[in-house]
């Protein structure tokens, strides 16, 4: 199991489009992927409903957890999405 802190750095936060990108990426790996916000809300990163409920605005911190097959790759791929600001600009 891998745990990693990530910060939301894109201006608009995790709205529908970035949420979709997270779900698509997470779903392409066999492992379980979870995201937890600062309020302790823990959601399945393969569920768009869950990811959007995080209401993660720019500047907020999330805890990413992956457990199972290809967990390292999953964490890397999701971190990259955040770092690339979800191609927002």
């Amino acid at each position, binding site marked *: 199991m891998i745990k990693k802190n990530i910060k939301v750095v894109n201006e608009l*936060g995790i709205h529908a489009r970035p*949420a*979709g990108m997270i779900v698509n990426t997470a779903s392409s790996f066999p492992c379980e992927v979870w995201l937890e916000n600062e309020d302790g809300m823990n959601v399945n990163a393969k*569920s*768009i*409903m869950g990811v*959007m*409920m995080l209401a993660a605005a720019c500047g907020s911190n999330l805890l990413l957890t992956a457990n199972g097959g290809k967990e390292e790759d999953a964490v890397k791929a999701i971190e990259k999405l955040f770092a690339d600001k979800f191609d927002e600009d």
Partner: protein
Amino acid sequence: MLIKKGIAASLGIAMGPALVINKEQGRAEKRMLTPEEAHAEVHRFKTAVEQTRADLKAMRDKVLSVLGKKHARLIDAHNLILSDVIITQTIPKKIRGKLINAEYALQEALDNIERQFAKIDDEYFKERRFDFIDVFKKIASHLASAEKASSENISEPSVLVASSLFPSDTMAFRENKNVLGFCTDLGSKASHTAIFAQSAGLPAVVGLVDISSQLRTGDYIIADGEQGIVIVNPRAAIINKYKARKAELEKEEALFSRLKDLPAVTVDGHKVNVFLNLDAEGSPFKWKRLKAGGIGLCRTEGLFMNRSILPSEDEQYEKYLELAKAYSGCPVIIRTADIGGDRATKLGIKGLHDERNPFMGFRGIRLFLKYPELLKTQLRALFRANIKGNISIMIPMVTSYNEVEAFRQIADSAIAELAAEGRPAKPCRLGIMIEIPSAALIVDQLLSLVDFISVGTNDLIQYSLAVDRVNQYVSSLYEPFHPAVLRLLHLITEAAKRCGKEVSICGEMASDPEAAAFLVGIGVDTLSVTPKMFLRIKNAVRKLNFKTSAAMALSALDLPSAKKVRALFDSENSTHSKL
């Protein structure tokens, strides 16, 4: 005639008969099933989901071709909602487990989602619930095999009125030329519907509470997407007023597409900065599409209004930071608060009640020097925000050298304090408003203390001519082209040029296209204008010839009356428009 106030969601004006589409489907009723029926019910549900998926695919292709990839991704999000475990597993499980009909299971799931979203404070994220509602209602409509809200049967130009519209509806309406705009009971400026409407150029007013139940199809309405109001069955005079405004807006839009990427330079290559005047309390993003080169005047009085406690340093910092970031890379000139009179009293500052003459009273820099802590709070917030931007500070109501010196001392101690606390901060360039004749007359001395000056023409004219513009008996004497005003402006600009410092005009005169030739002609570096006049001023600058304007401005200084000055510039303008 009835006027309804809502939220301006998408600019523009739509006028025409209302078409009320009430899509409220009501709540699903619960039906109990046998286990065999439940099995078939799951199948029925899955079919409805697949039909919805097919709809989305068709929609996505349309969005992609009409609005582009960025918007198409929103539809992708809808597709993901369809694939969410709630739809694929939770609901079928409920149908089988509780032996209930699909509509009811869907309704329960949606209720649950709405409850979750209700807990979110952030307005933007809260709005996202409409994405879920949209998808769920679509599935429901397939379950009911109800007719789809279709734009095909809108046979005459109409303004759509509905309780709420979903992004998919808005998309379909965009394609129909008969849809002039829309008004809804629900929604906010951040809703997808509003965003789609903006990108489609359709006027929209939302948040009208109950308009869909108050109106009947065929009522003539005006949806004013600028002011966020809807006028029902307006009088002829109002219709005419709106027709004129609509024509004006269309002209502006044409001007915008022509000018947006062109620089503000005269025909002979002289560059003039055209900046914006803004209020700190507004959204800094509102006017970004104008692509102004900077903010020439950001007023901060609004941050102190309608409240009984002073805004804290952090509150101010957030606001200035937002502004600095929105215009990163551009100069942003923020004026320290020009508060006084009743406003100060409300904030608990001991000022004067009912000043006999607030114009000449206790306000601006005078009040802040008396209460240096207030000034220091604002300066600290500005210096901290300047880390992320290019902020300059401007002092209002300056009349003397001592005031600027005193201001500088307070600024220096604010910087020293921040440094001692180890807080990141950066000093700002300092400028003053020239709006009082005494400051204009000693501007050469004041310039030795500051980096730039900006002329507040409204007050400068009122103080020079002893005219109160709101006094109807003398307001006609308010005259920007009065030779005395022109000579003062010339004197100010000359002094600034001699010490190589920038001079800007941020009063209303800068927003007057007729005055552009004179102001550019005397060598003003920056015209800071109201957002509404931005394009017209840019356009006026681009038509000027700097050398001719400079010569004319000089000869204007010798003319004895405003009338003669106007005649001089008019003749020049008309020769230009003939060219």
